[in-house]
């Protein structure tokens, strides 16, 4: 018996067709993966399921009866809960206040009953084996990963029949991502349905019973997960054969020191880091999320206060602001963690975003040389193959992968040859991921020195020359060559060497 059955679902936004005659069906008791490139219509589909959008034509049946959600509350009352990438949490509220928001257990006086709320929270955490999170912490003090976990708790608090996880693992470090996979299985084993969306093939493999593939707003295939190969899935997703995801790694490291760091500390999350990065090298940074990676990259970029010695190309520097770091060829540039909050002016144009860091360079006697600017913008758009109608298009209307390319372009225009990348493939489709990996290796081959943090272990294994593993803010291990394996990174991230 199908728990959810979708027939010929269509949805347009003005001239853009987001879904055209998409079908989807899934049973209670399974984990059903939904796959597709960015722009394939997955998001629109689940937004319709969760009542955030209305559809134009088609039919949805849930548990045998017709379902036409008018708003998210309607979806909830039918037992559908979705965890989106865009978090819907309120920073000023605590973990438990967020989880039970609008469903708070009440006292006789109509005020929130804190005791029962706490008990319910702990029970929820216990039932689904949540990672340790204090229920009374305010969201504003928490990392993206921790917030994502709270978002998941909020969805589970509604005890849904259908749980939709939209790339919920992308913000999670390895161990928590693993937990989420187990949780998906648990939901299925309890006779409920878990709809799982991820760009990471390994996860889909590990968790899904069946999978449905969307391309250009339509359903192109439904498979038993065991009966289909990765290659076939990827081919069906992108509609063509994909060149290999990871580029060939050719050694390009020279003996010239690009960045030398000695005893760098920042806040209470980064302690006494000492390492060197060479010209032409991709130095990976691994470890569980929240173990000092953010502080490391931000301290190097001058975005967080720090103590310690730093040398760039042999010269001592101590950047106290990103402005200090962005000093042209001898500087240091960052692809920040939060593309939308730190990287891009979403309402502004592709062009304005690309040149923001270097706009002064186009100033001639106080006036901007817009032709020169446009020329450079065109070159960069071509070089990175940024898909935009015109350079004047607001960057917020681009797909996630293209937005990230704009961030890269903005960084490259600064001409800095030491690059810091914070999880640059987060929320990026598989085709663009491949392009980004190739770009990283190409830049290294040209003599750039690259510090590359990724929350996805295979990326470090396949792209980096060496990997620093951070644990509790200190460098726990430095792996190179054949030592770089997922197991080695993970065990260094988790275990004491002595153990």
């Amino acid at each position: 018996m199908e728990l959810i059955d979708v027939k010929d679902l269509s949805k347009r936004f003005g001239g853009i067709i987001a879904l055209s005659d998409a079908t989807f069906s899934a049973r209670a008791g399974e984990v059903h993966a939904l796959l597709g490139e960015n722009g394939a219509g997955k998001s629109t589909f689940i937004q319709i399921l969760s009542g955030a959008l209305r559809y134009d034509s088609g039919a949805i049946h849930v548990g045998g009866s017709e379902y036409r959600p008018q708003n998210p509350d309607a979806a909830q009352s039918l037992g559908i809960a979705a965890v989106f990438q865009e978090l819907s949490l309120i920073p000023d509220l605590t973990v438990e206040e967020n989880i039970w928001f609008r469903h708070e257990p009440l006292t006789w006086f109509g005020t929130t009953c804190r005791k029962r709320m706490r008990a319910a929270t702990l029970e929820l955490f216990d039932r689904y084996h949540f990672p340790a999170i204090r229920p009374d912490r305010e969201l504003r003090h928490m990392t993206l990963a921790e917030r994502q976990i709270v978002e998941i708790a909020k969805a589970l608090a509604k005890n849904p029949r259908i749980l939709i996880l939209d790339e919920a693992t992308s913000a999670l470090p390895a161990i928590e991502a693993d937990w989420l996979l187990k949780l998906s299985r648990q939901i299925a084993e309890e006779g409920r349905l878990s709809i799982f969306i991820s760009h990471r093939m390994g996860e889909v493999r590990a968790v899904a019973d069946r999978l449905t593939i969307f391309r250009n707003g339509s359903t192109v295939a439904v498979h038993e997960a065991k009966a289909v190969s990765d290659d076939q899935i990827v081919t069906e997703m992108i509609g063509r054969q994909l060149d290999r995801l990871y580029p060939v790694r050719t050694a390009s490291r020279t003996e010239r020191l690009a960045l030398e760091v000695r005893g760098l500390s920042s806040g209470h999350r980064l302690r006494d880091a000492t390492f060197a990065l060479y010209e032409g090298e991709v130095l990976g940074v691994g470890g569980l999320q929240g173990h000092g990676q953010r502080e490391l990259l931000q301290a190097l970029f001058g975005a967080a206060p720090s103590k310690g010695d730093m040398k760039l190309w042999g010269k001592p520097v101590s950047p106290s602001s990103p402005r200090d770091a962005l000093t042209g060829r001898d500087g240091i540039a960052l692809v920040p963690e939060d593309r939308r909050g730190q990287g891009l002016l979403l309402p502004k144009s592709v062009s304005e975003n690309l040149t923001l860091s270097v706009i002064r360079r186009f100033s001639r006697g106080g006036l901007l040389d817009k032709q020169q600017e446009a020329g450079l913008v065109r070159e960069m758009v071509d070089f990175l193959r940024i898909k935009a109608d015109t350079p004047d298009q607001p960057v917020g209307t681009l797909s996630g992968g293209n937005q990230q390319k704009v961030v890269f372009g903005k960084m490259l225009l600064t001409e800095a040859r030491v690059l810091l990348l914070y999880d640059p493939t987060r929320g990026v489709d598989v085709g663009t991921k491949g392009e980004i990996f190739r770009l990283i290796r190409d830049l290294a081959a040209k003599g750039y020195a690259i510090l590359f943090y990724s929350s996805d272990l295979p990326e470090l294994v396949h792209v980096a020359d060496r990997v620093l593993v951070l644990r509790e803010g200190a460098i726990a291990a430095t792996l190179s060559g054949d030592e770089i394996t997922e197991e080695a990174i993970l065990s260094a991230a988790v275990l004491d060497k002595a153990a």
Partner: protein
Amino acid sequence: MNRFLARNRLILLAYAGVVVLLLVTALFSPGFLSPANLRSTLVLAAFVGIVAFGQTFVIIGGGIDLSIPWVLNCAALLLTMMAGGQDLALIWAIPLLLAGGAAIGFLNGAGVAIFGVPPIIMTLAVNVILQGLILVYTGGSPTPSTPALIKFLAVGRVGPIPVIGLVWVALGIVATVLLSKSAFGRHLYALGTSATVAEFSGVPTARTTIITYMISGMTAALAGILLTGYSGVAYLGMGDAYLFTSVAAVAIGGASILGGSGHYLGTVAGALVLTILTGLLPALNLSNGALLVVYGAVILVTVSISSETWGVLFQHLRPPAREKQGETSG
């Protein structure tokens, strides 16, 4: 230019508002469209436009300047006292007062950008402090006599065109160069759109913020100086009306009050709308109280139509958010 208009539909809307208001006003009081009356409307609008010059920069940068009324008032009072009716004294009095306005702006900007005081609190406090200081200094009595040169600048004419209209045009050119053609303008829009992104992009955020408040202080002082020429005297409270109008002109001109968008060319239309409105309302034969109520209500409606509401509406009419899909991967 087409690109500029495409991105700034709200500015066009504001100018359409100007035309509509002119026509409506002509209906109610046919004499309104006489050259003399249009000229005096332009002069009044120019004062609003000059005060709102600085406010435009501050608001685009994501702040707000509430110290304008008493910066203006101080400049006016000090000018009449310093000059004592003599044109010659203006040689040092005007630069000194403009520098003083900029200094107050520096104080505002530094408080906001370096010490992190919210703009509303910082500039409101400075406004009150200035009010207090000038009361102590003048003992509360108005001062007489404005130098002739100032009178010429405020109410004089070159042929049929008011001098202050020319001043306003000059300011419009300066603003357009700064906003549309300079690196500073890019930095400013970036700052107002997202201070964090600007900071991460190497934009000198503190400096940019401080400069906007300095501009605002300077144009408030300039408006104060010119207003003494218009009214012939400087008196306490003469700047109070400009607090609301400076913000309203910017908002009617299509700027988001949250920063990051807008243009001085929009503010110019906003200043015209507000001034024509002021001229129109007396023709309705209302009591003074009722007049204020209508004035306030009309501005409220205009601002909400021209800025946020329409912006949001337009967004909904457009295909929403390939952005969202991209990000959440659909």
